[in-house]
Every structure is written in structure tokens, then in C-alpha cells.
């Protein structure tokens, strides 16, 4: 399967899923029209590089995706309690700084997911991406942090799970 | 309308007012964009609350479309600030 076909299969599945969520019905007429629409969308998508081809079609991939989702939700809740504490403390305890983080993910999709997760987790905001390096604004940066520390603290946890289902 | 839903709506309304304060105060254009983005997402949530308050799932479609338009607007403005294509 070429990258382009693989990407189209994913687009088809995603479009069909969105259709099912929006119509909220499994009547055969809805399914038929939904399939036609999703097929049209998949075929009309101009995506020569195969954006979604980075997904791994492997037996263990869904398991890794679920683990990633779990880690992510826990981090999201922690991020919010952390942010709430900072905002409500009168002294505003922040030490903002910009750090660089290296990622081993090669595909655009993988990097997008990583950057999104970083933005939604405690005190970090993905600012820019150049090659394999992410630029991150960190609200509470310990003094003297270098790239290795930052990579370990911010990205490594997500990357381990992400690497299981995207390239 | 159920009292707890009304209370949630009031709290969300207070949040929108605070964010409006930032929108008015600025001081720079990006601050206002961030405030507008925040207001848009809070409003999406508020529309979902309205759906519960009026017991009508029609509002959910409104929320979805509102969210889509707000996102496109924010990305367009970000691109304009960046000066890119």
C-alpha cells in the first residue's frame, strides 16, 4: 500500500466516523450517503505526501493509542490544577522561559500530536518547530535547564506512547 | 431552567466578561487575539450549556459551527500577524 492510499484510507475512515457522529443514526440510507460522501472526500483530498500515512497499521497500535490517551488525560487534569494554583496565588509564582526540545518522531503527524499534547500539559506551550526541534515556552522553568533535561521532562513521556502508533 | 445549569451559565458569563476586559485593555493586538480566541471557546461551551438549558439538541450544531468558524478566524489572524501567505 502506497503512502497516498494509506492516507486516503484514514481520511475515509475519519470522514465516515464524523458523518456517523453528526447523523447519530445507523439507518441504511444514512450509511449509504455517508459512505459516498466519505469516499468523495477521501478521493478529492490532495495529499501527495500522505499526511496520515505516518500512522502504523499494526496489531498493537490501538493499545498504544489508548495508553497515549490515558497519559494525555491525566496530564490535562494535572495541567489545569497546576494552572489554577498559579492563577489563584496572589504572588503569581511563574518563572517563564523558552527552551528547546528534541524529538525522535519523523512524521509531521507525529510532531503535530506531540506539539498538541505539550500545549495542553502542565505549564508548557509549543511555540515553533524546526526540523526535529520544538521550541517551547515553559511557565515554570527551573534555572539552568538544558535541552536534555527539557526533553526528558516535557516530551519523553508522550513520545514513548506516540512512537507506538505513529512514525 | 434547572438552577444548577443557570448557575453554570452565570459563572461562564462572568468568565466571558473577564476575558472581554482583557480584549478591551489590550495592550497589544496579539493580546486581543488571545482574548478573542478564549471568548470563542468559552462561548462554544456556553452554547452547549444553552442546549441543556433549553432542552434542545439543535444548539449543538450551532456550537459545532461556531467552534469551526472561530478556529479558522484565529488561524487566519495568526497568519496575518506572522506576515506569511
Amino acid at each position, binding site marked *: 500500500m502506497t503512502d497516498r492510499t494509506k492516507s486516503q484510507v484514514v481520511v475515509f475512515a475519519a470522514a465516515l466516523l464524523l458523518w456517523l457522529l453528526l447523523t447519530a443514526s445507523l439507518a441504511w440510507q444514512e450509511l449509504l450517503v455517508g459512505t459516498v460522501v466519505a469516499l468523495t472526500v477521501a478521493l478529492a483530498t490532495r495529499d501527495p505526501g500522505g499526511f496520515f500515512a505516518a500512522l502504523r497499521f499494526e496489531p498493537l497500535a490501538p493499545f498504544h493509542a489508548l495508553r497515549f490517551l490515558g497519559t494525555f488525560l491525566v496530564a490535562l487534569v494535572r495541567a489545569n490544577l497546576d494552572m*489554577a494554583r498559579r492563577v489563584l496565588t496572589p504572588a503569581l509564582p511563574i518563572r517563564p522561559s523558552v527552551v528547546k526540545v528534541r524529538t525522535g518522531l519523523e512524521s509531521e503527524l507525529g510532531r503535530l500530536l506531540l506539539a498538541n499534547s505539550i500545549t495542553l500539559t502542565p505549564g508548557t506551550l509549543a511555540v*515553533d518547530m524546526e526540523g526535529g526541534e520544538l521550541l517551547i*515556552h515553559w511557565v515554570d522553568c527551573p534555572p539552568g535547564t538544558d535541552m536534555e533535561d527539557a526533553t526528558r521532562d516535557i516530551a519523553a513521556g508522550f513520545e514513548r506512547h506516540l512512537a507506538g502508533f505513529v512514525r | 431552567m434547572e438552577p444548577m445549569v443557570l448557575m453554570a451559565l452565570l459563572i461562564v458569563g462572568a468568565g466571558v466578561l473577564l476575558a472581554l476586559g*482583557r480584549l478591551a485593555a489590550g495592550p497589544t493586538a496579539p493580546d486581543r487575539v488571545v482574548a478573542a480566541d478564549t471568548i470563542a471557546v468559552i462561548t462554544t461551551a456556553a452554547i452547549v450549556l444553552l442546549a441543556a438549558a433549553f432542552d434542545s439538541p439543535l444548539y449543538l450544531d450551532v456550537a459545532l459551527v461556531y467552534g469551526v468558524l472561530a478556529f479558522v478566524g484565529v488561524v487566519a489572524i*495568526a497568519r496575518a500577524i506572522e506576515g506569511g501567505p
Partner: protein
Amino acid sequence: MAFLGKVLMLVGALFCLLGALGLVRMPDVYNRIQAGTKAVTMGSLCIIAGVGLLHPDWWPKLVAVALFILLTNPVGSSAIARALYRSGVRPWRKAGEEES
């Protein structure tokens, strides 16, 4: 179940309020993006989950709205942050700290 839904709604509304408060209190635009995005994303998700518990038959559309917020909100924030960084706005530092 309905009670839990209402509690989730209130919690979500409070997080939205906190996000807006952060937007007002934070000293520079990057920190404002952080406060705004995180708290408001989580607040919206809580509200949507709460409404989902009150009206279980609405869940497909609620899932669509939730997924959409979860995927687009951080992208929008990162887009603004990148635009700021590229146009030369540097983060605020506490007085007395030197540039590193």
C-alpha cells in the same frame, strides 16, 4: 447520574472562569495563551461531559464537539504563539533576571 452531570458542568464553568482570570492576571502574552488555552479547554470538556450525562441520547454530537475543541484549540494557540515569536515578541522575565 444527573447530579454528577450537573457537578461536572459547574466544575467546567469554574475552570472557564479561571482561564479568563488567568488571561487578566498573567504578565505577558505567552503566559496569557497558556492560562487561556489549558483551563478553557478542560472547562469546555467538563461542561460537554456534564451535558452528556444529563442527556445521554445526545452523545454522538457532543463527542464531535469535544473532539473538535480538543484538536483545534491547542493548534490555534500554537499558531498565535508562533506568529508572535516570529514577529519578534520575546517572553517576559521577572525583574532582576538576566537574558540567558
